[in-house]
């Protein structure tokens, strides 16, 4: 029972992280229908920028954190401007391949700069965040990630629902030509969504780094785990991303705990194929109906 609870909590926190990582992915997909294969690398870039600010430059943690967010926000703009903007209106395959290329590029670049070693952040989370509940202890990382996640999810929820920029983004996602004809600056929306997505990625990258340490390979594999999550939840749905993340996290942890650790890595993809066959648009995705 104790083992079960420990797994449950671990699974939920891993799942929460997946949800957070998937959030940036869904943002990009919602506003520009780009399937971003460079997602894991964006996570890694965020984590490494924070590493540079906090460890190498020795800035205080809050300032390093803010700098990281600002830096990745700007980086998102640059990526969109340099690589994605020339492809607006091009065939889907080219955009997908471009993100595959970007993924290889970023990964190579990170490996050249930082190497494939495991890095760690200094232990800066206060011990007071530890929750002890009977025999179960929840480490502060999980608590902190949960709090940060809740804060950011609600900020983005409000952003999409009420701010004009968020409404523009939703309109572009819904119908690009209609949004254009109503005077929405579609290109700015694309740039904005990449910037926000890079920021969200940095956030989840940092939390991931606190939990498991930062390693280019591990984090970029994480970016591919996002696919089962978003497919399960539905590509367009933020709520779906959260629920999908939790389900996949739990599934993975329980498989690792009860069945076998090697199966743990592959089970999300097995589930993915199964979902794609049974319910391709996920739990909360938009069902496209096509008839001939």
């Amino acid at each position, binding site marked *: 029972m104790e083992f079960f609870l420990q797994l449950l909590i671990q699974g939920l926190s891993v799942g929460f992280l997946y949800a957070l990582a998937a959030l940036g992915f869904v943002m990009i997909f919602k506003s520009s*229908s780009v399937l971003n294969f460079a997602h894991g690398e964006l996570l890694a870039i965020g984590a490494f920028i924070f590493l540079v600010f906090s460890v190498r430059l020795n800035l205080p943690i809050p300032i390093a954190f803010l700098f990281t967010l600002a830096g990745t926000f700007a980086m998102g703009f640059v990526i969109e401007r340099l690589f994605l903007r020339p492809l607006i209106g091009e065939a889907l395959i080219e955009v997908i391949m*471009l993100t595959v*290329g970007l993924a*290889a590029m970023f990964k*190579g670049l990170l490996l050249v700069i930082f190497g494939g070693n495991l890095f760690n952040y200094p232990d800066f989370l206060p011990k007071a965040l530890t929750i002890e509940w009977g025999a179960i202890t929840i480490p502060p990382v999980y608590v902190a990630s949960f709090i940060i996640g809740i804060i950011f999810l609600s900020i983005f929820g409000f952003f999409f629902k009420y701010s004009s920029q968020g409404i523009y983004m939703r309109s572009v996602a819904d119908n690009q030509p209609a949004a254009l004809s109503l005077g929405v600056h579609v290109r700015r929306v694309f740039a904005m969504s990449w910037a926000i997505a890079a920021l969200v990625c940095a956030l989840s990258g940092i939390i991931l780094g606190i939990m498991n340490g930062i390693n280019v390979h591990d984090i970029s594999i994480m970016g591919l785990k996002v*696919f089962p999550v978003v497919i399960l939840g539905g590509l367009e749905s933020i709520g779906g991303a959260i629920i999908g993340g939790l389900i996949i996290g739990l599934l993975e942890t329980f498989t690792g705990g009860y069945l076998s650790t090697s199966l743990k890595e592959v089970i999300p*993809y097995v589930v*993915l194929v199964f979902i*794609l066959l049974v319910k391709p648009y996920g739990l909360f995705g938009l069902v496209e109906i096509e008839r001939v």
Partner: protein
Amino acid sequence: MRRLRFHPCGNFKERYEEELTIFTTDFGRFWLLVGLLILFVVIPFLSKPYLLYVINHIGMAAIAAIGLNILIGYTGQISLGHGAFFGVGAYAAAILGTAGGFPFWLSVIAAGVITAWVGMLFGIPSVRLKHLYLTIATLAGQFILQYLFVQWESLTKGPEGIMLPRATLFGVDVKGDRAFYYVIFVSFVILTWIAVNLVRTRYGRAFIAIRDNDRAAEGMGIPIFRYKLLSFAISSFYAGFAGGLSAYYIGSITPEPYTLFLSVEYIAMIIIGGLGSIPGSVFGAIFITLLNELLSHATEFFMNIGALTKIALTIAPLREFVFGLAIVFFIIFEPKGLAEVWRIIKSSFKLWPFSY
């Protein structure tokens, strides 16, 4: 004797057959003959063993890339599982060659057929899925196959890998780079010939119709699911065949090479070479294989100079960076790839000195 045909000074085609011909002039046939002569008579005797080794790798990569181009470039179904299919072919050939006791030629062909079935299995999601969703499904296929290579130890021997027996063909021992050169390039020529002609038949036209507009294709009575599966099967056959050849060529296999990165490499080949172009796949295979060799040489070169070992260690990941850069560069600046560059060069020669 019929008259030689030269390039017309404009588009004077009157029948569809003329549009579909492979050789518009007799020069094309002549150059093909010259090319084949160079391929089979000149290169194997003039090249050093190392160069032959590289060319052999180009040949195998080109076979797999042509397969992937049939799937992505002609049918428009993006697959991220080609590296794993290549691996399936390698494992199938290895298992049939050792445990099954099949002869070399049969196990390579059987590897192609088995991979075709596996490819069809992973193509089944295409019945309901398109574009993004299908891409993700093939990504899942890649990971599942990769897992099986390592974990299904009773069949694949896990991380240890399998040693293959010596290849023999028609009673002759196929050993050394030159013998393999002939095996690889004879199959390359046959498979290229099949692919070039395939895309001109009703099947090829159906593939192109599905790529351009699947709904319209279905409206015109093309059973799209069947054709998509066929495209998956053909493309996987090419991958599996190339994989089988490579397993015999290298002599032993382990699960390491058949990762997602290999799939990305193949995609890079056909994008850099040119989507929807058979010569393009070959150009891409040449480009990527040479790039690979060049980078590994650079690494070795720096490794040997004591003071620069540190640079060498950073060059290894640089390979991935250069790959990504090449893909990104070609998509942004020359989306039709090297095949288009080649066409421009050719046509500027054709029109010279009146280039307008």
